[in-house]
């Protein structure tokens, strides 16, 4: 019988169907971080339970840890140190692999898991973080869970879940210059709503997805959760195999050959059926930016904030009214030229080396507008080191950006680090919720190129209009 990619992974991990119709699904990898990992490990130990396979559990310090140079266990977040130290203690006691502060492998979970080859095609991976779907870009079934589910996965190596419905989002056509995977996913969510993918495992496919680099596919999959999807994934291809080869946790020798042979079969059969199919021509997409407080509040950069009567439902109009008041905008306002206070390049969406290269190509030889506070947070210590080897850090620093250590905290105001009250932040992150990057901050989501271009002019700027340099 013809099967979709997700169905193949599902079938290979289905331990059994339970009497109520849910399934026990085998979990190959669990990834933890210090904010909820500490609680999950502690709670497991308190109930006298053990981690079933410590060698299949990994943990990083990314959520609360400072991004300031010279950081240690002390963080801006009140009591942040307690989370860090509890995680270290519990990880050691449980015998799991920890990428601690100071470890050259440390970084944001969804950046380092692919980087180290921990996530691989066809496996199941869960992490108590909603953006775990990022890792689906490698052809794995990877999804976010809560802390209790993390305890369950560690204790039993399984989860009890419903089989999600299957959706394929088919991207065809050719991307215009300065249009990226970030613009593709924002475009999709704005078109079909933040609830559009609910209950579905979404396969991103089509020529425009095949043309994307592995890192760009991660950006695409990263925001599947903002579309309310169970997860997002892309079928592995030669690019995926090339990406994984030689990475520390990737198979080696004969094991590699066996794995590659298996990975080659991990694709949707030609006549396999999906519950829902969406087709998008990427040639219609321009650099995309959010105007409100949900990722669905997005439009092309040359457009204006929509008239409320063009929105689909009463609910959507009410939400948009509130969002516009919060963002200090109104229908008909132009996004281009809107003054910004801050620029942020980082987060599990856009903090990989390619993102930094794209931003740097725009920033090279230019200066950030004097009124703009600009921060770059590389996604991992390895990304940071690579950028420094290429001299990208100097481009950011010369332009007036702060150059930080890897972590999540500037992305979601982990209690300490934040942009100021009512500051308008142009951000490469994934959420523009109220107060997401600090009390009453006004976040606009965009690609690294759009953020870099806007930082220079001090207002929302179309990256297509900015000359770039190859340095």
């Amino acid at each position, binding site marked *: 019988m013809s099967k979709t990619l997700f169905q193949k992974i599902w079938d290979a991990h289905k331990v059994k169907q339970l*009497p109520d119709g849910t399934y026990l699904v085998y979990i190959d990898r669990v990834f933890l971080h210090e904010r909820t990992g500490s609680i999950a490990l502690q709670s497991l130990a308190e109930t006298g339970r053990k981690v079933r396979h410590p060698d299949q559990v990994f943990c990083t310090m990314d959520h609360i840890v400072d991004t300031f140079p010279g950081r240690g266990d002390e963080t801006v977040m009140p009591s942040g140190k*307690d989370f860090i130290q509890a995680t270290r203690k519990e990880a050691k006691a449980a015998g799991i692999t920890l990428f601690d502060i100071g470890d050259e492998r440390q970084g944001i979970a969804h950046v380092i898991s692919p980087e180290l080859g921990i996530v691989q095609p066809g496996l199941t991976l869960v992490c108590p973080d909603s953006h775990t779907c990022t890792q689906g870009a490698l052809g794995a079934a990877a999804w976010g869970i809560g802390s209790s589910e993390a305890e369950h996965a560690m204790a039993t190596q399984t989860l009890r879940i419903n089989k999600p419905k299957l959706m394929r989002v088919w991207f065809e056509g050719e991307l215009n210059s300065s249009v990226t995977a970030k613009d593709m996913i924002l475009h999709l969510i704005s078109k079909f709503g933040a609830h559009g993918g*609910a209950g579905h495992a979404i396969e991103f496919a089509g020529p425009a997805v095949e043309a994307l680099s592995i890192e760009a596919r991660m950006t695409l999959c990263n925001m599947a959760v903002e579309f309310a999807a169970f997860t997002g994934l892309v079928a592995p291809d030669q690019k995926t195999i090339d990406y994984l080869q030689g990475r520390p946790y990737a198979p080696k020798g004969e094991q590699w050959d066996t794995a590659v042979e298996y990975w080659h079969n991990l694709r949707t059969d030609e006549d396999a059926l999906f519950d829902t199919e969406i087709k998008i021509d990427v040639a219609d997409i321009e650099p995309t930016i959010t105007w409100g407080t949900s990722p669905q509040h997005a439009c092309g950069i040359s457009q204006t904030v929509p008239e409320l009567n063009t929105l689909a439902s009463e*609910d959507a109009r009410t939400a948009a009214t509130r969002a516009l008041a919060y963002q200090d905008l109104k229908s008909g306002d132009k996004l281009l030229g809107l003054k910004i206070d801050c620029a942020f390049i980082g987060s599990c969406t856009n903090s990989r080396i390619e993102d930094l290269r794209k931003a740097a190509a725009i920033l090279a030889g230019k200066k950030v507008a004097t009124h703009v506070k600009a921060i770059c947070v590389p996604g991992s210590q390895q990304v940071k080191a690579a950028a420094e080897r290429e001299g990208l850090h100097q481009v950011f620093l010369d332009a007036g950006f702060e150059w930080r250590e890897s972590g999540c905290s500037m992305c979601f105001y982990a209690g300490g680090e934040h942009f100021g009250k009512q500051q308008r932040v142009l951000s490469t992150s994934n959420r523009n919720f109220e107060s997401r990057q600090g009390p009453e901050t006004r976040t606009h989501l965009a690609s690294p190129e759009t953020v870099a271009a806007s930082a220079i002019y001090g207002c929302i700027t179309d990256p297509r209009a900015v000359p770039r340099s190859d340095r």
Partner: protein
Amino acid sequence: MKAFTTHCGIAAPLLRINIDTDAIIPSREMRRVSKKGLGEGLFASWRYVMPDSRELNPDFILNKPEYANTTVLLAGNNFGCGSSREHAVWALAEYGIRAIIAPSFGAIFYQNCMRNGILPVVLSNEAVMQLSDETLQDPQHLKLKIDLQEQKVESPHGLKFEFDIETGSKEMLLNGLDSIGVTLQHEKEISAFEQQVRKQHSWLYLQN
């Protein structure tokens, strides 16, 4: 886990769509390595006049006297979307919320509710509106009754709505069962499966 059988309680409408877990509990409110001590941070950005202050915002619905002791939330589409933080559910539980009725939920949030004794009830938008319209006339007295065994929500004026729930999760909620314990009843099958996958996909398990 606290069992859920039937519950009769005061219902508050928070009918916005896409209420995310950052709004349910902001990041700055998760201060201790614990599942406890989070109730005070519930809806902190809306509930208090200033971030980090504890001065109540009189305009926020749960602070209004007619909604004192609310135990049921009526919400819009996609309630609990966003971050996976289970703290949102722990905060709701500590505040005293026992059930949330909405047209749809964030997927991770829904599971988190199930694992912590809060009943997430999926009803149509129209049903949620009807329940809201009726209860807001006198919230302290027009309480909603939720019966998990019968899978029904009833209002004092006779509205009746049935809802779906997986039988496994229903069983766990009704009896306050620990899901790990329940799953470990299948230990033999898990072990057998595990041996087979470790053989078939051996490259996945040899690297450490």
